């Protein structure tokens, strides 16, 4: 049975989503995003097993690669912002508006 895996994946996704919405620290928001991605990965792998083919597993690899790339750029941005602003709160970075 793969239902449990899917439920776990959904739970992880919701935790990540709520984290993104409510947390202010950029690092935590970032980790929550990763959590959502990994929840998706889990779902992909589960479906791959359920359907008996490898498509989902391959996509999971793609997601991991994208996530890795994203981490590199995202962390770099966060570090730069922290250096200039002495804060990692996402609410302090609101100049890009209107």
């Amino acid at each position: 049975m793969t239902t449990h895996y899917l439920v776990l994946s959904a739970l992880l996704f919701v935790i990540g989503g709520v984290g993104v919405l409510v947390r202010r620290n950029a690092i935590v928001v970032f980790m929550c995003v990763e959590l959502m991605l990994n929840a998706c990965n889990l779902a992909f792998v589960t479906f791959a097993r359920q359907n008996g083919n490898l498509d989902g597993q391959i996509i999971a690899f793609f997601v991991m690669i994208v996530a890795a790339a994203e981490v590199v750029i995202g962390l770099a941005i966060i570090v730069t912002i922290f250096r200039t602003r002495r804060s990692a709160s996402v609410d302090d970075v609101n100049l890009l508006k209107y």
Partner: protein
Amino acid sequence: MEPAKIIEHAGGVIGVSWLLIALPLLGAAVLLLGGRRTDRFGHLLGVATAVASFVVGVLVFLQLLGFDPAERRRVVPLYDFIPGLVDPMGLLIDPLSISFVLLITGVGSLIHIYSIGYMAHDPNRRRFFAYLNLFVAAMLLLVLADNYIGLYVGWEGVGLASYLLIGFWQHKPSAATAAKKAFIVNRVGDFGLAIAIFIIFTTFNTVSFAGVMTSGADASQGSLTAIGLLLLLGACGKSAQLPLQSWLLDAMEGPTPVSALIHAATMVTAGVYLVTRSGAMFFPEGSTAAIAVTIVGVATLLAGAIIGTAKDDIKKALAGSTMSQIGYMMLAAGIGPAGYAFAIAHLITHGFFKADMFLGAGSVMHAMNDEVDMRKYGGLRKVMPITFATFMIGYLAIIGFPLLSGYFTKDGIIESAMEHNATLGWLAVLGAGITGFYMSRLVFMTFFGKKRWEADAHPHESPAVMTWPLIILSAGSIVLGGYLILGNRFMTFLAPAVGLPEHLPSFHPFSVAGLVTLALVAAGAALAWFKYGAGEVPVTAPRGSFLTTFARRDLYGDAINEALFMRPGQWLTRLAVFFDNRGIDGLVNGLAAGIGGTSGRLRRVQTGFVRSYALSIFVGAAILVGAWFVVGNL
């Protein structure tokens, strides 16, 4: 007798009759493109091309005379102008067109020669001759074209030349305005002519005179009448007939030779040519269109004469007279075959005596520092004997003094009008009486009485280059009428082109109408003598009665145009501009502003807070998922 068939021709001088048009056109092109380089010989070249064209005209005339009368309508194809409409464009050489050719090039050459002297001190004399040449070319195209579109090209070409020449002294605002007015009023007439041509083409599937003549029978009466009336509108514009007369008096702003050539002898008579040329087809005797022509003619001959009685400006008085005389021609042209010969004969003699008098007036103005107010003339007969003598001949010719040109031709018109319709006839007689008055008034005020000159005026006789044309023109004014009319010489000559009436008129020297005319003319002249010859002429014009004001203000023609067309037109223009800026463009800009405003509100959503973006993504995703559930469960 019906007009003769038009046959194709090649060879001889007629074969190269395009030279008639090409020569003056070449002259104009050289003078206009050559610029200041041609200043030195510009006037000579201008005269040379006009005279050369006259020589070609005479040769063409002689060759035409060599043919049997029934074969005197020759068409010379030139080239394909507009495939499907005018192919080929050709020249029609027949007694009617050659009469005009000789008049245009003959009188035209004399006026060219005169202008050498008249314009001697003008820095732009070369340009003047270029325009004159252009005019001659366009006028020749008008009368020689073998189809209505070619005629239309010439028709507007002379309009252009007239525009350029009226506005020749264009630094004067009055001249520029007069030129523009002439062109625009003419365009109103051209509007009619153009639509007439459209109907002709759709009805007959051709615009050539020959084609229209041969395929005429199967047209409906309605379209024939419409064509006739629209052609008349065109003729009214060009020939300054009511209701499109208003431009001619203003056109006197142009140099005097222009007034003589264009606004007296040739261009303004184009309307008469048009009616005569189309006569057999679109103005058959007794048709609505023909009746309209006679009515317009009579109305204008009276209106012009009345205007002539009150003008103090010598050129405007003559212009009123021109209107009136063309009214006579139109009247005759509307009568039908019985009148065509008289119309054209009067046109030719009028070309001579009116050109003579205009040039005479020019000679007077030349002597009087360009003064045109006759109240400041007086007693000029002694200082300008040649001008005086030639002017007197023109004067006697126009009032119809027995045995001079006008006597024969105008009397012919009155007689045939009498026969056609007595009311029209008597109105024409009345017009002749008024002519006697206003022309006598003009002559007495100018040449007789006391000197009323300005202090700095030193009148002198004009140079020979100006007086010789006067002498030749006055000679024509004496003999031409009798030569053309007696023995119906001109009528039989013209017959192949316009047809003959059922019975030929015979000349009665002592008909009732003729005698009454003479008596009225004498009475008019006598009245003028008592008022202006014997009496004192005040230097400033007295206020005069209501009637005088009426005539002085051109029968309120300008006031009517202004109230009826100009003011509402200006109002309409302002309204349209306002509507365009505020209405259409306002709508467009309003739409743009609306979209811009909405976007301005909407962009406030972009707060810059990452978490609010995340929330909206989340809400959007939730809505999508929710919608999917709802739709999926339906």
